[in-house]
């Protein structure tokens, strides 16, 4: 780090400590052989990992979270990609309005969207929790799907598609041979981003959960409230490991900073 800017460097170090050190403490606590969150840990053991992996509420919730994340990401892309094409290639009137509409779920607090779906669909219309969770998560991911794939499309040259059409390719053939390859990195980025966003979500799922469909983050929150033992640290460490795998995949493909930070380096 640059030593000629001492104040900036000191603030930067404090910033990194606040961002990263709590994560290190979670990992350290996960390997304790004791039964409290005392620090330093009392000894080394893997018992809390065993406990976490055989704790039925967590494994069940993990399955629910994975299903929900995969299904909502798939749905958001399935309806989002065609919408992106229409917005950026369709020359439709009111393009700005439609685009704003698709990005609007980003403005309203997720907790408020959760309350809205809970009140209207679960209480008033008695819809089951699972479809409402799926609907809510899909609406939440739609802005990401439209924005990320839209960025891939906006950065490409429309004359490629016009050339294909001009040379006699059908609209479908143009889509599959020209547009889809242009979109592919955007779709991949949106899928990773969508999966992570849905999997980690708390505020939207909070009111929409039921005993049968409870996601992992919510189950973990409930657990911390009742008991205060290192099993939650072990579960967190496993989530951290899985997240790191996703980060590596992102870096090896489209680029980590590009997908998750929206930064083109």
């Amino acid at each position, binding site marked *: 780090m640059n030593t000629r800017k001492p104040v900036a460097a000191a603030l930067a170090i404090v910033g990194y400590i606040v961002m990263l050190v709590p994560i290190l403490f979670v990992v*350290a606590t996960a390997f304790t052989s004791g039964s409290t969150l005392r620090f330093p840990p009392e000894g080394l053991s893997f018992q809390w990992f065993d406990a976490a992996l055989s704790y039925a509420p967590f494994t069940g919730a993990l399955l629910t979270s994975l299903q929900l994340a995969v299904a909502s990401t798939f749905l958001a892309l399935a309806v989002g990609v065609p919408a992106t094409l229409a917005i950026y290639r369709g020359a439709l009137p009111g393009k700005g309005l439609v685009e704003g509409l698709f990005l609007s779920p980003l403005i309203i607090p997720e907790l408020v969207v959760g309350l809205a779906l809970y009140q209207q669909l679960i209480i008033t219309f008695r819809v089951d929790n699972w479809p409402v969770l799926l609907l809510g998560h899909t609406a939440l991911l739609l802005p990401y799907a439209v924005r990320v794939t839209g960025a891939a499309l906006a950065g490409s040259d429309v004359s490629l598609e016009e050339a294909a059409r001009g040379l006699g390719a059908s609209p479908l053939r143009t889509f599959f041979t020209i547009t889809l390859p242009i979109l592919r990195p955007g779709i991949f980025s949106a899928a990773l981003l969508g999966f992570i966003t849905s999997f980690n979500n708390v505020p939207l799922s909070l009111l929409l959960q039921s005993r049968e469909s409870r996601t992992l983050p919510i189950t973990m929150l409930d657990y911390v409230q009742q008991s205060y033992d290192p099993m*939650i640290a072990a579960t967190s460490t496993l989530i951290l490991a899985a997240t790191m795998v996703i980060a590596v995949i992102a870096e090896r493909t489209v680029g980590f900073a590009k997908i998750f930070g929206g*930064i083109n380096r």
Partner: protein
Amino acid sequence: MVHPRTLNETGYIHEGNRMTRRGTFALLLLPGLAFLIFGFLAPAMGILFAAPGTDASEIFIRLGEMLTDPYDLRIIGRTVGLGLIVTAVCLALGFPIAYILARSTSRWGGVLLALAIFPLLLSNVVRTFGWLVILGSNGALGQLLVHFGITETPPQMLYTPFAIVMGLTQLFLPLAIIACYSAVSQVDAGLDDAARGLGASRGRTFWDVVVPLSMPGVVVAATLVFAGSVTAYTTPYLLGGSRQRLLSTELYSYSSVTVDWASASATAIVMTILVVLVSTVAARIGRKGATA
């Protein structure tokens, strides 16, 4: 040779069936619009006018009470206050990091940028949980303070505003860094050199050149952090306990503990207005800054 563009402009291929093309594209929008309307817009409207078994008038009466009742006002004030503190802390820590990263030429710059972005991928529950280990009664920070004789017994840090500020800063600092980083990288490093060459001190160059030119990014960072902080649930729930009530925890307890729909709706309205208001004002400032 006939260029495809020319074909297009003369209407040979596209103009003739432009209407059907538009129709096809409009159809492509429909599934997405259906999801937005049923999964978002219509239910959101319901918060205002059709909470279960509640009249719109009850919601608005409760909203009026909320803006005058001392208990409710204290919660709104605490939420906004904590949001402002977290925003200030995130800018104070995030801008220097963004500045160093954007001006870094070493390969460590990329690693440090990745380390700043990575926490965004990690579950908020996992990240916030670390503070329970650090700030808890048997936690590391308390032990450290006792060990060095600063206090006799570990002070109460968990379930205080301090804990919430730490937790929220950890959550939203990456957003502040990314927004500031994008802005600072667009400020030509040559300008720094020019100012220095003309005799400005390092500090003066930073405050008079880098910061003003990065203002649009700073405004975006502030908006993201503030909006995130006043709507966050996980952090106040885990680190604030039952005494540090905020709008988000109130909204949850109105909807699922006391089941008071008028209050839940009113809280949701206050929260939404707060976020939308701040975003709109910030967008104005950002646009003014860009044209000035």
